[in-house]
């Protein structure tokens, strides 16, 4: 009963807050997270989208559409390069939905799915940046300096925020 539940308004508001918190977290902890050459990138908005797919059992939400909206805001407001995350976020929802049909979602399998999702987001983002020459970093240093720390940071956030976010979804539903 998506049309009648509080999720109809709660989900987009949460999505926007998570999107903006990504920037705030990056700004406040920038001396820890952007400690060059090691870079940790916060992906709270990805966490919100992926957990929505994981908790989506009897209510179906138009996640693809909201992912496009989140991607558009991300591209315009944060990066200024239009056409990267607007495609990556819906793809992410699609891939996560396929994975959920194979693995029944719980806390640990969700961790595995989130691991794959973060790798996908960072990898495709890196490829896109290389194509438009936003970066000149080689693939190997991307793996070591960006992907590794980013995975560690985001998986830790997943472990911390999994149950609070589930509580929020249950409350909204």
């Amino acid at each position, binding site marked *: 009963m998506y049309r009648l539940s509080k999720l109809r308004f709660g989900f987009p508001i949460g999505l926007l807050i998570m999107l903006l918190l990504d920037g705030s977290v990056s700004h406040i902890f920038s001396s820890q997270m*952007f400690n060059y050459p090691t870079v940790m990138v916060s992906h709270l908005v990805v966490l919100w989208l992926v957990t929505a797919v994981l908790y989506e059992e009897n209510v179906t939400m138009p996640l693809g559409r909201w992912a496009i909206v989140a991607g558009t805001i991300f591209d315009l407001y944060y990066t200024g390069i239009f056409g990267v995350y607007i495609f990556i976020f819906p793809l992410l929802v699609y891939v996560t939905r396929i994975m959920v049909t194979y693995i029944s979602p719980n806390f640990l399998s969700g961790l595995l799915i989130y691991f794959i999702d973060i790798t996908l987001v960072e990898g495709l983002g*890196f490829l896109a940046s290389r194509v438009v020459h936003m970066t000149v970093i080689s693939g190997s240093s991307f793996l070591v300096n960006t992907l590794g720390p980013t995975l560690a940071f985001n998986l830790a956030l997943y472990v911390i925020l999994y149950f609070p976010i589930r509580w929020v979804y249950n409350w909204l539903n």
Partner: protein
Amino acid sequence: MQKFSFNRRLVIIIVCLIVSFALMTVSVVIRNKRSTPPLIQQFGNDIVGLADRVVALPANGLSGSVSSVSELLNTYQENQQLKKQVSELAQTKVRDQTLAKENQQLKQQVKLNDSLTDYTAISAAVITRTPSSWQNQVVINMGSSAGVQKNMPVMSGSGLIGRVAEVNKTNSKVELITDNNDSANRFAVQITTKSGTTVNGVLSGYRTATGQITMNNITTKAKIHKGDKVVTSGLGGVTPKGLYVGKVAETGGDDYGLSTKLYITPATDLTDLNIVTVAVTKQ
């Protein structure tokens, strides 16, 4: 039927890829060429910027109170050290004022209105930072309505931190000098060596391993020492003369041994930005 749906998926993927590349190319071109982004993008960014202030205000306030508690712990030591510096600074400031006044009078005598060193400052607060490892950008809360224009230099604390990359009505994006991308504009700088010769050059990139700015293609024979101060030269238009960039940390030859390559330690900590200053030159 199975084959049809597979083909359709393939077509969708290819179309998405092509559209994505086209959009990326167009937006990079627009970003490099035009002074402001398209009106729709500006409008969207202003709206999101407003919403972001609502989120960023409590977050930044929380971080501010935490850091003020931790700063309180070493206040005593800091106070003792700063007291010594203040007395020296007062002397320098008075001298600076006298020189500035004299300079103004001299300029009036030779009927020179504005020289390269003149600029006015716009103070702005940092709202947020781009959560991406490829783009070192911060969003500040002043836009074209406050007089900010594209390519204006931005300072924080004692030194240069970057330049305005995109201007909306009420907020703008600042590309930090740590950004290593190809399209980033470079600053024209100069070094006055100990023997008094001036060496001109252009900042060329950022060495992430040591956190130093690099400066390439210096063909002068003048001896540059470690610790020489680097300031902007004011050549090339928008940047005023005399903004402090940093100190020379290391000198060396480039890969072919033809020119000198310098490594510069930036004057400000580029990961801890809260209040920044946009320098506006009178043109």
